[in-house]
């Protein structure tokens, strides 16, 4: 972004690093960083200049649970393997783990909707799992009202610089239709589909996720590799 004057660039980079650039301005600046090396450089320079302030904060010994959590997330099978002696029991544990995850997820949805919104309960769910059957995203929807909820569960580690995950409906007839970009972390996001998209969803048995440029597929159809697929299950 060459149109940023040097003084303004300096100012924005400094306030980005300091943390006083927030909200929409922060997000926009992050987009500019992705597009421009000089902007990234300015940020890196400021990081080197002011991050040493952190050295002055008193050290606090972290509890063991932090490392345990990191270890489990970078190596999801650790928990299972610790308890195993043979491949047969490993297999059983894994299937049991995947099944109990699915049951827990479904129960959680039921409980959430029993307590908060019994009338418009979501009546469909799709769970995207990784190779180890660990859930990554949960997508639930209501085929009457068009409500759609997306919950990232353990997708953060997948994050790729300068790429986005896009969610697609795979209708039984016709081409994939985009449901938008998936967050890799944070709280559950909800939206209401347009009547047109809802009618596509009603004729869809499966969802897919593809890797796309930032901002999503430029063509309206998947352009990157399809990374995950999940069947839509009726509740």
């Amino acid at each position: 972004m060459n149109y940023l004057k040097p003084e303004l660039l300096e100012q924005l980079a400094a306030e980005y690093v300091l943390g006083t650039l927030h909200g929409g301005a922060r997000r926009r600046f992050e987009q500019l960083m992705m597009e421009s090396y000089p902007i990234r450089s300015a940020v890196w320079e400021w990081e080197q200049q002011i991050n040493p302030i952190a050295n002055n904060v008193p050290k606090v010994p972290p509890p063991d649970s932090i490392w345990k959590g990191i270890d489990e997330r970078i190596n999801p099978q650790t928990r299972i393997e610790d308890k195993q002696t043979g491949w047969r029991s490993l297999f059983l544990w894994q299937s049991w783990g995947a099944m109990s995850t699915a049951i827990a997820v479904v129960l959680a949805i039921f409980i959430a909707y029993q307590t908060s919104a019994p009338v418009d309960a979501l009546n469909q769910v799709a769970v995207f799992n990784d190779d180890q059957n660990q859930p990554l995203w949960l997508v639930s929807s209501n085929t009457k009202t068009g409500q759609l909820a997306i919950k990232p569960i353990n997708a953060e580690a997948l994050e790729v610089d300068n790429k986005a995950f896009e969610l697609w409906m795979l209708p039984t007839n016709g081409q994939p239709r985009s449901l938008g970009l998936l967050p890799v972390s944070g709280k559950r996001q909800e939206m209401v589909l347009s009547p047109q998209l809802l009618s596509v969803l009603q004729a869809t048995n499966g969802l897919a996720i593809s890797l796309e440029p930032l901002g999503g597929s430029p063509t309206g159809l998947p352009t990157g590799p399809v990374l995950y697929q999940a069947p839509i299950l009726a509740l």
Partner: protein
Amino acid sequence: MAEQAELLRLLQASAQGNQQSFEKLYQLTAPNLFGLCLRMLKRRDWAEEVMQEAFVKVWHHASEYHQDRGQVNTWLTSIVRYRALDRIRSQKPTEALDESHEQKASDAPGPMDWAVKGTEMNALEACLDELNDNQKEAIVLSFIEGLTHQELTERTESPLGTIKSWIRRGLQSLKRCLAK
């Protein structure tokens, strides 16, 4: 922070999938970074979550580190701080109260109590000292507590325009001073 050469060696091994090196990197840097998280987030559970999220990211992105990012601990501090800032901003202000930790935090050195540590800190310390007290306080509070402009107006009982100007001019002076 531990010796930079050692941290670099550990990060490089982590990028090649060596989990033992990654654990060692964590052990060497976590006490400092966890202290920072607690200071910024004020809540232990959030600080623990942010540490986990940040280090999972470090593991998966270790190979993206390069020297233009500065020393390894600069890079780690950035990852942890940006994650913590996202966390602070995504919470409602009313959720951010944890009295037990508030008390602890107030025992810790305030932004104006500086102990000089290491050479990089010496230069920064000297330049921070050249700022006037208001500018220095606004910058340090933003950095280590993640305060927004608005929160700074409440903390310092000064108008928003004044706060913005302290930070802007303070950063400009800091830059000039560090370039000397």
